[in-house]
């Protein structure tokens, strides 16, 4: 994104000097506004650039636009690496008619979602270890169907298990700019609760700790 945070008119003069082919910044801001208004889905800077005339700098236009919508009934929000216009959350009470009734998630699904969000990328075995119970197939399916979680990269450990990560839709749904903005993430991390801590090895490992060791020994939680 651009480093200048000057006002739009100055930028316009600026732009006309350097990128005389591209429309003035004020015009670019209008374009970004129009494109984002026309769609319900977040748009990446690359997508914006692809639709705007050659030489435009949508990243810079977004800075101005975000400022313009500050404190308004609609605001410009960042969702992962994309941008979207959303109504201000304090005005949700006006939108009873638009409220979408979402299927109530089971406790297992909610917990699994939270574990994926806070521990991503995370394997199924890790989710089970944290919850102390096996994850039913339906739970993962439901979250994937909601497009809140998806498959991440395979873990480079024996068996190469798949991992799960949260999606852009997840961020969009919960109004998160980034997975790093998850509530209490820092506190959990500093308390060591997002670490994988292998169970102490039992000498006469006849218990179920035996397999837990295998799955957890080489856990590597990406600090993304």
């Amino acid at each position, binding site marked *: 994104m651009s480093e200048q945070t000057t006002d739009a008119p100055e930028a316009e003069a600026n732009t006309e000097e350097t990128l005389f082919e591209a429309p003035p910044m004020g015009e670019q801001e209008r374009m970004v506004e129009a494109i984002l208004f026309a769609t319900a889905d977040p748009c990446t800077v690359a997508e914006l650039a692809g639709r705007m005339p050659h030489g435009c700098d949508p990243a810079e236009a977004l800075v101005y636009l975000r400022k313009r919508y500050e404190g308004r009934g609609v605001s410009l929000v960042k969702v992962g690496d994309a941008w979207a216009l959303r109504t201000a959350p304090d005005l949700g009470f006006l939108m009873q008619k638009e*409220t979408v009734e979402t299927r109530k998630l089971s406790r297992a699904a909610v917990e699994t*979602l939270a574990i994926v*969000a806070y521990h991503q990328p995370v394997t199924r075995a890790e989710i089970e270890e944290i919850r*102390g*119970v096996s994850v039913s197939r339906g739970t993962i399916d439901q979250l994937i169907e909601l497009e809140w979680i998806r498959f991440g990269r395979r873990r480079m450990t024996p068996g190469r298990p798949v991992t799960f990560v949260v999606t852009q839709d997840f961020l969009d749904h919960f109004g998160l700019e980034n997975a790093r903005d998850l509530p209490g993430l820092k506190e959990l991390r500093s308390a060591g609760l997002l670490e994988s801590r292998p169970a102490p090895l039992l000498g006469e490992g006849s218990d179920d700790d035996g397999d837990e060791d295998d799955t957890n020994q080489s856990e590597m939680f990406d600090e993304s």
Partner: protein
Amino acid sequence: MSDATIFSTDVNERLAAEALIVDVDGFEGPLDLLLTLSRTQKVDLRQISVLALAEQYLAFIHKARDLRLELAADYLVMAAWLAFLKSRLLLPPDPSEEGPSGEELAAHLAFQLERLAAMRDAAAKLMARDQLGRDFFARGITEDVTRTRRVTYTATLLDLMQGYARIRTKDEFRPFVMDREKVFTMEEALGRMRGLIGFAGEWTDILSYLPEGWELDPVKRRSATASTFAASLELAKEGKIEIRQGDVFAPIQIRNKER
């Protein structure tokens, strides 16, 4: 102590235990149950007495067995493990024994419980956030993006060269494309004979119907002979002429039928 008092304390304990046991389906595994039991200690999970917790759990399992409740295997596995942990915590450490101490095992269990509690808390915080479609909303009227399709054509230099090669090499292999000047077609022969058969009152060799000049060049003669013969057959079929051949390889003769 009277029987009555024993009975009443029994009843109270039993009721408390049953309240948990009746809810056993509501627990999501032994860790969940342990977490719930730990709440009764009303302390920070970091200061929890794992020994006390293990005793509570084992008591719970014991009661459940008394009530002949079917407990899932993992509850029993946990019970066995906690019984082992309890013995380790109670007995003085045996220096000859390998493996982690009872304290290490207890600390790990406490960690697991704390982590599960933290994740539950995080899940609650997550669900309490403003949500799309509930607290904030996306654009209601979306405008469709019209897709215009532009078609460009491409070819490679190889295509071009192969195309050219294809045309140029056609000349080198032309057995089927015969030179027109040396071909006397059946249509031509028919046209020629229709004009002439009116005069053929007598039997005449068909070779006399060959066009002038075609009998000299062997290639031309073959073509003209073949087409004239084919044309004769056609005319005989139409009933215009009669056709005969005296012997094998003898001259083929025709004569006008419509005299």
